[in-house]
């Protein structure tokens, strides 16, 4: 299938993501301008104040976006969704607007400024009639930088469930699908070029103030139309969430499609950036349901010691979650424990069990995702349980890239999951956990208890999926997405339709 046909097939979704992206950019840059320009005017008058404020704005811009999300999500009113994304984008857009306003005003010819007073202008008249018009080209240049920058950074909004073109990019990385990645990246790049060209024309126009005002007016109008349209169709749907890897995307789509089949209006907020995010979201009610793994719930969320008894872990999680205002549904049918995965050649050379690693630890290069370094059942415990002493520091990378690195001999062992489709696709080998180190990771739906109580039939509908997905089925579905580059939604629909 050609790339264009691929896009054509997804045009409705692509348009929706593009619209979300544009709205994010417009709201963020309008807010940043509404804050940055007046603040810049104030700072231009007192250079001693300007320096620390500009420095602070500069520091805000250097905070990595995911770290910023981590800081913002626990705050009241923000949580998971567009609000957090907008706050982060505003913080990033503020610096160029603020700095250019200050610099633009400070570089107005002092002779002209004195002449303005000498002719009888008040300070306010001078600001309006001389300072701002003369600083306008520089202010507009700052706005232009901010808008183009925001079009790019808005792709990270998808990590907090705010949608936008980043959703395709993240999904593309998670499923190792270059077409999806490009379907997000190319429109984002085109959008940036369009915004740059448009604002460049405003800058060069003979009446830049009027052109800028028209542009702001147009943006506000567009946003209010979009807002009104969104408001009309608003009906509180069941919000299904998921983490940001293939299996979670499939399970999210599966839950969503199943609930839709049972007549619930559903909104998808898939691809959220990790366990902590999903947990915070389901507790706050930003999402209503997502699939968690019992081991993750026990160790990461509840911070209890590991255990290798599946039944006991499930009961403990269920009780612990009840206290947090969450309902744990019945297991879906598969256990997605951690897996240490190697190339077939290594297995042929005798590396079959994790304990076989001990004698090879001096030369082995380990690839893993960052979370595994910090987990209670992660690397430190694994090293203790098997007496492993790796000489080379493990390489951290995105989940979606681990198997690529393994296949291309960049690393020798990767930490993956038992149901990873790519294991089957590439004929890779899972090392046997011969000392039973990893706890059970049964997939279970987690629901917000208030929403479950308020929506009769929701809990029952979710539990209809109990026991229906075994490890083989899950691996097949993961393979369909990772290996055959099919969309998680299509794979989920096909599974629900049954054999």
């Amino acid at each position: 299938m050609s790339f264009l046909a691929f896009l054509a097939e997804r045009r409705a979704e692509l348009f929706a993501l593009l619209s979300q992206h544009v709205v994010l950019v417009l709201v963020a840059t309008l807010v940043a301008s509404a804050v940055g320009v007046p603040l810049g005017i104030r700072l231009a008058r007192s250079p001693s104040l300007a320096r620390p404020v500009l420095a602070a704005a500069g520091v805000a811009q250097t905070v990595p976006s995911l770290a910023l999300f981590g800081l913002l999500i626990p705050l009241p009113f923000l949580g998971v969704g567009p609000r957090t994304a907008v706050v982060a984008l505003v913080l990033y857009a503020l610096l160029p607007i603020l700095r250019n306003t200050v610099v633009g005003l400070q570089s107005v010819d002092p002779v002209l400024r004195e002449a303005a007073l000498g002719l009888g202008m008040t300070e306010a008249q001078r600001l309006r009639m001389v300072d701002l018009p003369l600083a306008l080209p520089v202010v507009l240049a700052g706005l232009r930088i901010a808008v183009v920058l925001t079009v790019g950074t808005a792709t990270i909004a998808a990590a907090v469930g705010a949608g936008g073109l980043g959703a395709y990019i993240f999904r593309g990385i998670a499923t190792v699908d270059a077409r999806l990645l490009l379907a997000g990246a190319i429109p984002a790049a085109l959008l940036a070029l369009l915004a740059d060209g448009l604002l460049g024309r405003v800058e060069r126009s003979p009446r830049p103030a009027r052109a800028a005002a028209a542009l702001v007016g147009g943006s506000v109008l567009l946003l209010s139309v979009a807002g009104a349209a969104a408001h009309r169709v608003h009906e509180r749907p069941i919000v299904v969430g998921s983490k940001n890897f293939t299996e979670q995307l499939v399970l999210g789509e599966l839950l969503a499609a199943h609930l839709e089949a049972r007549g619930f209006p559903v909104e998808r907020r898939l691809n959220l950036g990790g366990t902590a995010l999903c947990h915070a979201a389901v507790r706050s009610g930003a999402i209503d349901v997502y699939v968690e793994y019992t081991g993750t719930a026990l160790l990461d969320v509840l911070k209890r010691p590991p255990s290798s008894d599946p039944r006991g872990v499930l009961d403990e999680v269920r009780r612990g979650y009840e206290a947090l205002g969450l309902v744990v549904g019945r297991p879906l049918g598969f256990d997605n424990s951690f897996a240490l995965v190697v190339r077939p050649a290594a297995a042929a050379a005798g590396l079959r069990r994790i304990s076989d690693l001990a004698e090879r630890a001096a030369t082995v290069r380990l690839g893993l995702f960052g979370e595994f370094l910090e987990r209670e059942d992660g690397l430190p415990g694994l090293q203790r349980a098997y007496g492993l002493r790796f000489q080379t520091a493990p390489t951290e990378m995105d989940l979606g890239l681990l198997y690529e690195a393994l296949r291309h001999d960049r690393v020798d062992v990767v930490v993956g999951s038992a149901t990873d489709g790519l294991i089957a696709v590439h004929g890779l080998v899972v090392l046997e956990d011969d000392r039973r180190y990893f706890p059970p990771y049964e997939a279970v739906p987690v629901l917000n208890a208030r929403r479950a109580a308020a929506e009769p039939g929701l809990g029952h509908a979710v539990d209809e999926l109990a026991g229906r997905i075994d490890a083989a089925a899950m691996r097949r579905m993961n393979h369909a997405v990772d290996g055959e580059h099919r969309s998680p939604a299509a794979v989920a629909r096909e599974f629900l339709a049954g054999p």
Partner: protein
Amino acid sequence: MTQSAPPTTAASLADVRKSYRSGSFALDGLSLECPEGRILVLLGTSGSGKTTALKLLNRLVTPDAGRVVVLGREATAWDPVELRRRVGWVVQEGALFPHLSVLDNVSLVPRLRGLPEPGCAERGRELLALVGLPPERFAGLRPLELSGGERQRVGVARALAGEPALLLMDEPFGALDPITRFGLRREFAAWQRRLQTSVVLVTHDVAEALQLGDLVAVMDRGRIVQSGPPAEIRERPEPAFVRPFLEAAGLL
């Protein structure tokens, strides 16, 4: 009849001192007077304090000590904005606002004074015509499209548009070639005679001072060295500073 007679002095400084942060005196006990309807020229080298003296008269500079009287009132008694709208201000090289048309530059002061709109533009056109710039050709141009001489003319027109009782001019013909400068000076003298505006003009050009001034005050290091009608300056120059100054300009 309690109405006082019109002041015969348009502006005066009495024993004014002003020092800048460096500690040097810009003005060191300066006294001078501009009679109504006349041109007072402050002549001096750069750094003599003549521009500072001029800015005292529209309160762009505040004195450390001494009295400043403008249009019959202590400068400190004027609201600065009100004062500046009554006193015309011509800046070196015009200092025109580059984002405004020629006409909008000239109509600015009437507009600031809140005159009704069609009147402001009308007044602007009249003044463009007065300074020799046909409004039908020049009104819509931007300052950057003008020659240096045309810019100076617009600067003068802008200052005169507010019908000022006193006109302050800082090197108004400074950055021009000698021929343009000479012609513009003659024209300016004619406008002044017609309008009978009181003028304080600052220059470092000896010939300009002697050509235009009804009174000339020669300044050096914040003080008046000699003052009087041009003929007196020319015939009996103060020997230590004024004579060499005139000689250097080739006028003795």
